[in-house]
């Protein structure tokens, strides 16, 4: 066996020689018993495969000189050693075949522009959070919800009968009962909780008929373009659940307050530029404004936008970045509506400011936002600004534990719902009833 292999190795290290093969065949046939019909396969002959692969040598750069072309064998129609290989012109199909379509490079695409556009999409996480969003949208922030919104709920006629108990049941359903496993996961319970709370608020339709003039829509794509200073910005993407209404929301702040915002000084983000963390693209459509619905949609006015935090499991935003996202999308919806009503030219002051509400939640923490679009003129930092009322980090309940937290044999947090705060649901209800009271 071994002398045979050795002979095979020596025979095959040099190219196969007649004599070696002949000897082997003679030996095989003379052996008698074992007669192989095939010559031996040389698996042992190969270079070491795990050795370092030398880096691929870049072929010599061939510079085409216009006057001096290499003589190639193209005309002779057959290979001639010593002559260069003919380079054939690239052939492209004269029709577009979708199976073999290669998109052109970015700078040759028909929509490519020289000036870049910064896009905010549903996955953008702004570094500076809310201050950066305020800078981009030229907005003045007012902490806390507007008082006239909250005063509506204090009237017992606007409250749900057995409100506390029903809300607690809704939370328990979302957090404990809605699964066959031990506990539902975050995406599921946040979605269920939001649906339950909205259903509870909708039970007031019998006493508030205006609630019936609303519609919910999910997975609609928004697009809005605006120019802030020297840069072009776009907001694109699917944001969340939209509650739209046949009638517009009432304006929150009057003309005097709107005029007062002109004195407000915008916070500077120096040394960070407001375009950080936005996607920079050179291929875009200018004047891209789309509310997500057709013109004859019966519920054109945006009432509330409900955004869930844990919807995308690939990533989740921190609280500050989540608040910025809510603000940007509320602004985007308002701006798309404003462009449709008043045209795309920048307007210094809108006759009728557009109000949009937004609620963001991660299943426990709620962020409430009321945004009023007063102007579409974003060229400078002076002039009338938009307004945003933000109520941040409102916890509906402290803990909803399936198993109690026990430290050193003492129950720190009991199982079940703990720390329920009814005033947060009052705010939720106030935002729902805004415009329907």
């Amino acid at each position: 066996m071994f002398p045979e292999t050795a002979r095979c190795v020596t025979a095959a290290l040099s190219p196969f020689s007649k004599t070696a093969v002949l000897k082997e065949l003679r030996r095989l046939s003379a052996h008698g018993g074992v007669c192989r019909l095939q010559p031996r396969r040389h698996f042992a002959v190969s270079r070491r495969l795990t050795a370092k692969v030398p880096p691929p040598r870049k072929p010599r750069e061939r510079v085409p000189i216009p006057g001096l072309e290499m003589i190639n064998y193209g005309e002779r129609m057959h290979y001639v050693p010593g002559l260069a290989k003919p380079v054939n012109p690239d052939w492209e199909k004269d029709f577009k075949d979708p199976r073999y379509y290669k998109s052109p490079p970015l700078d040759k695409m028909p929509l490519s522009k020289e000036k870049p556009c910064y896009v905010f999409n549903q996955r953008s996480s702004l570094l500076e959070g809310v201050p950066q969003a305020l800078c981009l949208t030229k907005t003045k922030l007012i902490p806390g919800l507007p008082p006239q919104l909250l005063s509506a709920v204090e009237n017992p006629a606007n409250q749900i009968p057995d409100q506390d108990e029903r809300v607690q049941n809704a939370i328990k359903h979302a957090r404990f009962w809605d699964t066959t496993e031990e506990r539902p996961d975050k995406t599921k319970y946040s979605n269920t909780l939001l649906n339950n709370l909205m259903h509870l608020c909708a039970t007031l339709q019998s006493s508030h008929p205006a609630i019936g003039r609303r519609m919910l829509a999910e997975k609609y794509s928004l697009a809005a373009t605006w120019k802030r200073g020297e840069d072009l910005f776009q907001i694109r993407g699917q944001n969340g659940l939209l509650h739209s209404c046949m009638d517009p929301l009432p304006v929150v702040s009057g003309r005097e307050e709107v005029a007062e915002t002109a004195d407000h000084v915008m916070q500077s983000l120096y040394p960070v530029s407001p375009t950080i963390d936005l996607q920079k693209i050179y291929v875009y459509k200018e004047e891209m404004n789309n509310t997500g619905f057709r013109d004859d949609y019966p519920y054109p006015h945006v009432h509330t936008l409900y955004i869930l935090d844990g919807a995308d499991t690939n990533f989740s935003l921190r609280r500050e970045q989540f608040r910025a996202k809510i603000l940007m999308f509320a602004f985007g919806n308002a701006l798309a509506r404003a462009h449709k009503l008043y045209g795309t030219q920048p307007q210094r002051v809108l006759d009728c400011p557009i109000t949009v509400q937004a609620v963001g939640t991660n299943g426990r923490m709620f962020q409430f936002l009321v945004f009023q679009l007063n102007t579409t003129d974003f060229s400078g930092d002076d002039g009338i600004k938009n307004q945003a009322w933000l109520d941040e980090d409102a916890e509906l309940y402290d803990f909803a534990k399936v198993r109690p937290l026990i430290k050193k044999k003492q129950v720190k947090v009991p199982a079940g719902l703990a720390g329920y705060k009814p005033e947060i649901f009052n705010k939720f209800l106030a935002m729902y009833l805004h415009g329907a009271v």
Partner: protein
Amino acid sequence: MALSCLTRALRSLTVSQNTLLSSQCELGALVSTTVAQCRGFLTTASLEQNKTLWKQREKYTIKPIGMKKTGGRDHTGRIRTHGIGGGHKQRYRWIDFQRLHYEEGKEGKPFEEKVVEVRYDPCRSADIALVAGGSRKRWIIATENMQAGDTIKTSAVIGRMAVLANEGDAHPLGALPVGTLVNNLEIQPGKGSEYIRAAGTSGVLLRKVNGTAIVQLPSKQQVQVHETCMVTVGRVSNIDHNKEVIGKAGRNRWFGVRPSSGLWQRKGGWAGRKIKPLPAMKNYVNLPSITAQ
């Protein structure tokens, strides 16, 4: 070409019977023509090495990159450096050592950056800082008192008067006053810092001599470099790193340090305290110095 290799190989493997029989009779040209030369071919998937593919990324990113541990082995597979292996998994954060890295479109102007976060880096002894300036973010080596929210300045301007150096700022050597503690030293202008990057280290700017500057490295070696080389002011972060007590063998193993051989070996000439004069000053500038004669 691949197809011809394959056909050649297959042809060599499947030699038909009548050819063999005829070869017994006529051991002539028949055999040589039918049995082609072949060295065998692989039946496995591609065996390209992907050992260093994780470091072939060209575009800068702040996202941590997964690393492949080598265990002290080189490309042949044998141990080249003993005592390396195991340890906690680490992800590489791409540090931008070229402090004077201008943003696109803003070349030439001194710029400021804001420190977003200072954190531990498993790949080095110093801490790293995420800084954001303009529309980009990058990782740099943090200095001693750097905290989140600070503003650091980078400028390439060499004025007539020396700049009042704040810790964390980066200036060329020619702009700093003599005697400042510096770190992240560039030897060749624009190459990126290669010296004084370890935790708690700092060099001292000794003197400035017509177009060059002389810096004392932490090993007391002196180097002469061009005055436009960028350098950061202050000591590198994590200054108590040399006072850290490992505590147990297991902790060393977490760091990826394997035990050395326990065999007692007679120490040679390399061991023991050496008292010798400092090596001569290393000159990295191709200028004739005044002292050269």
